[in-house]
């Protein structure tokens, strides 16, 4: 249980899907926090001191103590503010399923996004990588059917651990759709996920922190040109 005079700081960046994860979790718990934005290409002293091993965002600093790695932070938030909405499901088997698919998302999606955002529309390479993303989304569509059990989210009636893990990637999935001009969130192929993605993006805890696809496309152009977005 957190004390009243809690100091909660999040070192992050608006474009990072990994930073979005603890932001959604803190929003779900109704926790007020201060976010510092890292400048792309120049890591702050606070970041280097708080995360010397990885030197990466996000880092949550709770009363001076740093916690690193986005889904570890989400779990920390769930365990610390335990009387708010529960992020992980109560049953150990359901928890293991949420963790498994989160590991799957992290294994496949970010790497594919990083490749796709640099590719040219219509190129053979873009087709190859797009196939892989479509295959991953197809598996996640089946996972959604099983996990949601007919309800709105992977977590059931409300968003949970896996919704946060996967949903945070939606901004960039939409951005790469624009960059390579291939539709990934196709309701003919993955109807469950498309409907879920709309509900996720509209959620109170998500809508203010989901980066807009157009802004991410601009961000990518700036990355490629060597100048950096703030």
């Amino acid at each position, binding site marked *: 249980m957190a004390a009243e005079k809690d100091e909660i700081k999040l070192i992050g960046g608006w474009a990072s899907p990994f930073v979005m994860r603890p932001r959604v979790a803190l929003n779900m718990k109704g926790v007020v926090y201060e976010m510092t934005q890292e400048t792309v290409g120049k890591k702050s002293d606070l970041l280097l001191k708080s995360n010397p*091993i990885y030197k990466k965002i996000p880092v949550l600093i709770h009363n001076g103590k740093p916690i690193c790695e986005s889904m570890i932070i989400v*779990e920390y938030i769930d365990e610390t503010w335990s009387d708010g909405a529960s992020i992980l499901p109560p049953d150990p088997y359901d*928890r*293991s399923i949420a963790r498994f698919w989160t590991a799957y998302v992290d294994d496949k999606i970010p790497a594919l996004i990083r490749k796709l955002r640099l590719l040219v529309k219509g190129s053979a390479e873009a087709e190859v990588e797009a196939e892989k993303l479509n295959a991953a989304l197809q598996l996640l569509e089946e996972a959604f059917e099983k996990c949601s059990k007919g309800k709105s989210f992977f977590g059931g009636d409300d968003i949970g651990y896996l919704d946060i893990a996967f949903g945070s990637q939606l901004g960039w999935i939409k951005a790469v759709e624009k960059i390579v001009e291939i539709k990934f969130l196709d309701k003919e192929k993955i109807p469950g996920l498309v409907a879920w993605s709309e509900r996720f993006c509209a959620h109170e805890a998500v809508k203010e922190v989901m980066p807009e696809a157009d802004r991410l496309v601009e961000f990518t152009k700036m990355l490629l040109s060597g100048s950096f977005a703030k």
Partner: protein
Amino acid sequence: MVASAAVRLFGMWASPAVRRVEWALKLKGIEYEYIEEDLSNKSSSLLEFNPINKQVPVLVHNCNPIVESLVILEYIDETWKDNPILPVDPLERAKARFWATFVDVKCREESRKAFFMEGEEKEKAIENLQVQLKALDEELEGKKFFSGDHIGYTDLAVGWMTFWLGVAEEAAGFKANYDVKFPNFSRWIKDFLAEPVIKDNLPPREKTVEFFRAFKQLGSCTKVNQK
């Protein structure tokens, strides 16, 4: 005690990820049926229980499959609450998970490169591994085990480095030199390997070295079929 039919573990004798799960089951006193898999000829059961990754270990409890060794450890701790392996405090739990994923992703990556590659790439991997070992060494300052006075989740997660790193070094002809450079880590290795649950649950060393040598000679950089 749980009836053995309710808990099954699909594994492979040389796999550190499988041993990690066995150590956790034995620490908790959970009885289980062990099924040895031939990874070159996977059983239909394994493929049914783990269709996505097709890897060991797979824990099956009351017909429900759980895959990914660290996910299995959390499941075991949440299901059988005696002798907890994760700490109670959320900050300590976050630290335990941090070190487990650090070792499983970063240290394993560099160890794999040091094992499979040669020349400059091998040297660079060994250098990176030593930086990682230094971090682990510092984390152990003033502690017998990563988890404190008794072995716990972090020790089980890092545990592959106590035996399989040495095996990889011998099979691939490199040395990370932790016995010379990292006294806390070296001391932890000895203490960990002396624990009854651990020392009675390791594969035979010579056979494992031979296995790794043969694996390296296959010359491929593909993942070992375990996670």
